[in-house]
């Protein structure tokens, strides 16, 4: 089901958690809300769920105005970071809970509830665990039960709040793949919150990058990685370097020296130059470019990270091949970004 968030504002005791946020989610999409803590991503998710009420603005599920409905009426599936399983119920009872609490006229027969719960248990690959209690399961298994429980009510939209946040690295990776798989099979519109960019980029169809109660950028993983539209997104997703430069007459200068890089001719004055560590070329020391001395180098997998001091307290990090690293002059490295972006200060 399509989900439309329209000019949502949310204040907690006068402190704005979300500021005029709008977002369109298409039916069947897998969307990641990505941002640092305090960016409002969880608040947005809880607003969509109906666990919070917006100060202003509306939320639509398809054509329906969901903001007028209670949590119970919205028919959503919500997965919590710490599972929130009912610990006095077996796995099967947990999964069947959403069906059992339905009013009589919409409640399936007992045998049917059991059948559907078993089917979901199979989908989350926990067959044979139906009589266990949550306490007897590992974290990863608990989270899969939580997901099965959320899907049992055939939700309009599936909402996951840092679903893998409490799990260790290996389990996270497995579950990530597995969630993508389940999503492709069931086709539920899914929104998940994460602060882990790797998780967002790997898993989502589209990523919503948030910061300080606002949406910074919405796009496919490629879009937000390759063409970030703000210094925040540049800095938050992937590695990046930021330099204070001046733009004038179509050229860019750093510390007064020209860089032989073209800026738009109408831009003048101070600007921020952003580029990724790997998007650079090493050039001869006589040419126009950025020059600095090596402070440290670190071997990271197949490449070497070189930290340079460009003078006036500016440090940048470059990622170069190990062969290149073997040849550089440690006192004087000159390079030029091949892909970059200028932002106003």
């Amino acid at each position: 089901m399509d989900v439309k968030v329209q000019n949502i504002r949310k204040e907690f005791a006068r402190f704005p958690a979300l500021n005029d946020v709008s977002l369109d989610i298409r039916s069947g999409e897998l969307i990641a809300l990505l941002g640092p803590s305090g960016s409002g991503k969880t608040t947005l998710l809880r607003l969509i769920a109906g666990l919070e009420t917006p100060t202003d603005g509306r939320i639509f599920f398809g054509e329906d105005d969901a903001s007028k409905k209670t949590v119970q009426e919205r028919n959503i599936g919500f997965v919590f970071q710490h599972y929130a399983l009912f610990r006095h119920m077996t796995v099967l009872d947990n999964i069947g809970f959403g069906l059992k609490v339905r009013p009589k006229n919409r409640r399936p027969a007992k045998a049917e509830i059991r059948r559907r719960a078993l089917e979901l248990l199979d989908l989350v690959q926990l067959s044979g665990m139906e009589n266990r209690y949550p306490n007897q399961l590992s974290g990863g298994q608990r989270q899969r039960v939580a997901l099965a429980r959320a899907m049992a009510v055939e939700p309009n939209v599936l909402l996951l709040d840092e679903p893998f946040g409490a799990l260790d690295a290996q389990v996270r990776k497995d579950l990530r793949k597995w969630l993508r798989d389940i999503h492709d099979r069931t086709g539920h519109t899914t929104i998940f919150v994460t602060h882990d960019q790797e998780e967002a980029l790997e898993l989502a169809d589209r990523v919503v990058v948030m910061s300080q109660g606002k949406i910074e950028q919405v796009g496919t993983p490629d879009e937000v990685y390759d063409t970030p539209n703000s210094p925040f997104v540049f800095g938050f997703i992937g590695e990046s370097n930021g330099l204070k430069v001046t733009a004038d007459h179509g050229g860019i200068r750093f510390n007064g020296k020209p860089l032989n890089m073209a800026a738009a001719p109408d831009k003048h004055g101070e600007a921020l130059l952003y580029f990724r560590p790997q998007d650079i070329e090493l050039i001869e020391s006589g040419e126009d470019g950025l020059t600095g001395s090596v402070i440290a180098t670190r071997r990271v997998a197949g490449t070497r990270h070189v930290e340079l001091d460009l003078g006036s307290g500016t440090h940048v990090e470059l990622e170069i091949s190990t062969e290149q690293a073997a040849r550089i002059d440690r006192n004087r490295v000159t390079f030029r970004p091949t892909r970059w972006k200028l932002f106003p200060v």
Partner: protein
Amino acid sequence: MTLTSSKGWQFRQPSVLPGFRWTLGFTLVWLTLIVLVPLTGLFLKSSTLGWDAFWTLALEKRTLQALKISFGTAFLAALANVVFGTLLAWVLVRYRFPGKRIIDAMVDLPFALPTAVAGIALTTLYASKGWIGSLFAPLGIKIAFTPLGIVIALVFVGLPFVVRTVQPVLEELDREVEEAAATLGANRFQTIFRVLLPGLAPAVLTGFSLAFARGVGEYGSVIFIAGNVPFKSEIAPLLIVIKLEEFNYPAATAIAAVMLLLSFGLLFVINLIQAWSRRRYGYGA
């Protein structure tokens, strides 16, 4: 607290805080001095009666009736405390209101108040001429000097036990579990009765057993309000005192021994239920 290990139970486990021998030894000595020696004395004294005399006394109509009243009223009072104590704990944990701290402190008053004072105050209130008793008198309901009065006195002394055991568990109760129930479509009623209360059950059971145990042994507040009519409102502890005043020590200890065994049996069963729930659900109080 629990000793678990894949190799099975070991008598001593290496620990950052050594001192197993000392602590166990100290515990055993203390327990022996404070609990075991007096209780053994009690059984020894009652055994001077001889087996036959013991049973005749224990199965005497008056004794049985007194035991029935003691355990019955304690049970009813503990039940009432479970309902209202849990409610009170809920209000104290979940809501903010002016005077909350004062109410919170008032819960402990029955612990501190001399029980005789409580008994006299309650009797004055619930007697047929008292403030509350006079409201019920026209309806033909007598409260003071009946088993109902005993229940009220026991509710008073048992209340803090339920509140103070349920309160910390409620405080730690994960709000997300309630939210999860709501997102799955459960209404408030279903959330409370299917999700919250079953989760609280172990703590409530502990509170119940504490309040019950206290109620069975309570003497001071009850004797003022009970009226102490044999076969009607005479409690077992009072019967013990009566025997003592007759200098019939063996009879007094015999009744005490019966009470002790009954209480121990009931509390033991409650403990078993709790151990079972802890093993199964991984929590409990």
